[in-house]
């Protein structure tokens, strides 16, 4: 049974026909008999005590079924924090706030009605007597003496202080270095803005005592576990969580939120199903935000450009409460990546996590790693400027040489495999770097400001093993599971704990299984996103689905092949030890004529008339894979820009990406993810940024009219290429591809703009996004200094 090569082929996606015909099944598409509709009453204030909530008028509004406040939710606990750092201050985070609201959008009541309109109308009738208090939203002011405090457990607004690396060695290196560069680097707050707003449908069935929750989740099992065991105290096995088609996540749909928790509680109270779908306004206010760091970084260099020491002090804004994985993002996903792809003499990083009266901050595409890459790559360029050295040259001088099995960094991690210089060389060739520099020089003569920026990044995917992450504070394992069920006809259903919300698992995982079993892809179906069907799963984030979820499937197939060999050997009167599995057939080694196809073994397993003694009927396997280490994709990106000297407007002329994500299952899909990731990272550099009014604590960028999500005409075509350095960590050799673009691109763009302005003496711009106003001001300031 010969099949075309599946692994490494750009196969069109099998999920697309339903999306291009409007037949996708998103949560808000669901309509159940007896459905009710929810609207939440939210705080209009950044910080206010709740004196009283009067729901009487709302309750009497026509069509209203019920109104609940936090006081009605007796026996319900705080939303949990899933990553506990030592001495972390964990304030209560109730599904509906009862004592005080701590950010604009904090929910205080739910109104449930026969129609969405009635729910929204009645929500306006809920009267909350607010006692408005002073608020603090700024990262750099949250822990200042006298800043307004919002939690009893953290009167100084400090949630944690964390450090990694060698402080004494780093201080000594910086003190004695011939060249040091110090910069303040602000990594602004972003809003993920998946195009599908968050939504849920919760249904309780009185007759069986069972719940079903449809929810926009990247990890339905994690949602179920956190909600049942920690918050609602209802039996986990009585709750089925389904994450159907999910319209993008980018991290924002990992976390357990207030709304699905309240709806799951309320459906039992009213004994009817409830649907809630966020308006975009609510997405802006309540989806976990990303980034929001203020960093002081200092790089010590030798005269010939070797990195002697790197000191980083970061304040990370966590928002008003600890979102599910918030403490991990600015610590273990950030500080541990600060070695980059370079040999460094010494590193020390201190992080202070602070509470503010803002939307909680958690993982957003890249989560910690973009912040690390931005600090490293911006400092590399600032260092090159101080040395008057070419930034490409400085990078080449410091790359860690090629290694195949482990490089111990100065910040705890041990990289899997890497070969950084060739990736960068490939980029420079694509760019025609020498020509660019001469064009740039020629342009300057005519008043044209051209610039190029590099980013030679590293990132960490498939965070594991569970034992290690547990010792670092994770309250969950970080393995993945899969089940492969071979049907009597030889067709295969694959159940994976990973979840696809745009990644294309229904295609790539079928490629993987079809390839390994030597059967056509059409004989393989992929099932995901339903706790009632899939055994257990940790879900999809951190670019882990192929490397962790895929490896669990490889382990299942190994088990199926082993059992198949026993059955086939029996039928062929051979020894199981002498059996091979090649191209969809069980073959006796050395006797290529003695063979049985996969389908016949499958049928025999279910019709076991002529069957090996003691063997169980059936052909199905479940595996749990807990990786031995992280995987470390890397790459080199370049951006070429032109800056208008009169307006400060930045035009992207070229964007080039050479990524190394290990082996690739479907190049078309990997390219697509790089494109999308680059767009998000470019957008952070140039356009996006969540802004709070310092006085009122209002989210000023609270809609798509105010928050600059990139449009088609703002972005270029991307030039992509790859090198392939397989990881030794997993048998597939895949590292992870979902976040590379976002991690790499922001520093490439900012470095390009700074390079364009370098002729004016500019070596840094402290704050992103690089809007025309900010760039223009930078130009004016540089000119006035001259």
């Amino acid at each position, binding site marked *: 049974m010969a099949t075309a090569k599946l692994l490494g082929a750009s196969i*069109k*996606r099998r*999920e*697309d*026909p*339903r*999306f*291009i*015909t*409007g*037949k*996708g099944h*998103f949560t*808000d*598409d669901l*309509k159940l008999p007896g459905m009710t509709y929810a609207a939440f009453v939210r705080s209009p204030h950044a910080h206010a005590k709740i004196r009283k909530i009067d729901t009487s008028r709302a309750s009497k509004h026509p069509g209203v079924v019920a109104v609940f406040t936090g006081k009605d939710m007796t026996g319900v606990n705080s939303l949990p924090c899933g990553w506990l750092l030592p001495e972390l201050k964990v304030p209560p985070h109730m599904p509906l706030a009862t004592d005080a609201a701590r950010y604009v959008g904090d929910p205080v009541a739910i109104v449930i009605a026969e129609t*969405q*309109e009635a729910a929204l109308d009645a929500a306006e009738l809920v009267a909350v007597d607010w006692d408005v208090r002073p608020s603090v939203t700024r990262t750099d002011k949250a822990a200042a003496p006298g800043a307004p405090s919002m939690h009893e457990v953290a009167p100084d607004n400090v949630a944690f202080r964390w450090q990694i690396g060698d402080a004494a060695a780093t201080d000594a290196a910086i003190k004695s270095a011939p060249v040091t560069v110090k910069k303040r680097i602000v990594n602004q707050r972003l809003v993920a*803005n*998946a*195009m*599908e*707003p968050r939504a849920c449908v919760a249904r309780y069935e009185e007759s069986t005592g069972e719940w079903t929750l449809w929810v926009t989740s990247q990890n339905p099992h994690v949602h179920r576990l956190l909600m049942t065991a920690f918050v609602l105290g209802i039996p986990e096995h009585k709750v089925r969580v389904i994450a159907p*088609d*999910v*319209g*993008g996540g*980018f991290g924002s749909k990992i976390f357990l939120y207030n709304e699905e928790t309240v709806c799951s509680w309320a459906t039992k109270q009213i004994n009817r199903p409830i649907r809630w*779908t966020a*308006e*975009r*306004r609510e997405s802006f206010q309540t989806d976990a935000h990303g980034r929001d760091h203020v960093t002081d970084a200092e790089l010590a260099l030798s005269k010939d450009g070797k990195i002697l020491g790197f000191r980083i002090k970061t304040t990370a804004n966590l928002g008003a409460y600890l979102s599910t994985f918030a403490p991990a993002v600015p610590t273990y996903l950030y500080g541990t990546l600060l070695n980059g792809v370079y040999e460094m003499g010494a590193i020390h990083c201190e992080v202070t996590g602070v509470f503010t009266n803002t939307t909680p901050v958690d993982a957003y595409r890249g989560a910690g790693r973009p912040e690390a890459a931005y600090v490293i790559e911006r400092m590399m360029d600032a260092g090159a400027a101080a040395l008057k050295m070419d930034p490409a040259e400085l990078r080449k001088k410091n790359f860690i040489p090629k290694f195949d099995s482990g490089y111990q960094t100065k910040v705890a991690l041990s990289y899997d495999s890497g070969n950084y210089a060739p990736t960068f060389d490939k980029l420079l060739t694509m760019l025609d770097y020498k020509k660019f520099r001469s064009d740039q020089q020629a342009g300057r003569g005519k008043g044209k400001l051209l610039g190029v920026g590099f980013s030679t990044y590293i990132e960490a995917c498939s965070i594991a093993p569970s034992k290690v992450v547990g010792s670092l504070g994770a309250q969950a394992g970080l393995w993945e599971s899969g089940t492969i069920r071979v049907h009597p006809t030889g067709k295969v259903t694959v159940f994976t704990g990973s979840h696809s*919300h*745009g*990644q*294309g698992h229904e295609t790539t995982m079928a490629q993987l299984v079809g390839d390994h079993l030597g059967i056509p892809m059409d004989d393989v179906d992929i099932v995901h996103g339903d706790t009632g069907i899939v055994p257990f799963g940790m879900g999809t984030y951190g670019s882990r689905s192929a490397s962790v979820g895929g490896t669990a499937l490889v382990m299942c197939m190994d088990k199926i092949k082993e059992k198949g060999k026993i059955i086939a050997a029996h039928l062929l009167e051979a020894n199981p030890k002498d059996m091979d599995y090649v191209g969809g057939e069980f073959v006796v080694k050395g006797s290529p004529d003695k063979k049985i196809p996969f389908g016949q073994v499958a049928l025999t397993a279910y019709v076991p008339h002529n069957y090996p003694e003691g063997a169980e009927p059936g052909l199905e396997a479940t595996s749990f894979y807990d990786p031995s280490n992280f995987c470390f994709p890397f790459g080199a990106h370049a951006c070429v820009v032109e800056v208008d000297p009169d307006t400060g407007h930045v035009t992207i002329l070229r964007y080039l990406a050479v990524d190394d994500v290990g082996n690739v299952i479907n190049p*078309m*899909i990997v*390219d*697509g*993810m790089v*494109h*999308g*990731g*680059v*767009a*998000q990272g470019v957008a952070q550099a140039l356009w996006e940024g969540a802004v709070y009014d310092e006085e009122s604590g209002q989210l000023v960028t609270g*809609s*798509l*009219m105010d928050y600059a*999500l990139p*449009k*088609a*005409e703002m*972005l270029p*075509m*991307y030039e992509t290429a790859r090198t392939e350095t397989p990881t030794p960590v997993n048998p597939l050799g895949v590292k992870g591809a979902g976040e590379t*673009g976002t991690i790499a691109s922001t520093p490439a763009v900012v470095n390009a703009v700074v390079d364009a302005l370098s002729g004016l003496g500019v070596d840094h711009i402290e704050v992103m996004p690089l809007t025309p106003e900010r760039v223009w001001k930078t130009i004016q300031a540089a000119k006035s200094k001259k």
Partner: protein
Amino acid sequence: MKTSVTINGVAHSHDVEPRLLLVHFIRELAGLTGTHVGCDTSQCGACVIRLNGQAVKSCTMLAVQADGAQITTIEGMAKDGKLHPIQDAFWEKHGLQCGFCTPGMIMSAAQILERYPKPTEDQIRQQLEGNLCRCTGYHNIVKAIQYAAEKMAGT
């Protein structure tokens, strides 16, 4: 108010509140959930439909304003089990990832290609001003529309 429209060739008539948006008429009353709602300020374009031949954001119109109109939604693009060339192009060129913005993109693309049968890259990007995508970075959406233009010119 009684509102009657024809959607994909099928008549739909409902008594609606005057404030009901057309997109909610299509999704909740006609039961055609391929048209999506991605924002509340008419930016994202996930709700684009064709109304009397024009690409329209169905969240920016009241249902009652559409009384008597001929509407095509994403569900009406494929004919006799055959994909519209633009649908096929989005599939062929990997012009979608999560698929949420896709219906609006395809409906807008249909009008773009009526206006510009041989569009340049710049024309496509400018004409997509009212459609947001967070997954693709637009690269493959632009490629898909170029590919559809070639296919449609060839037939």
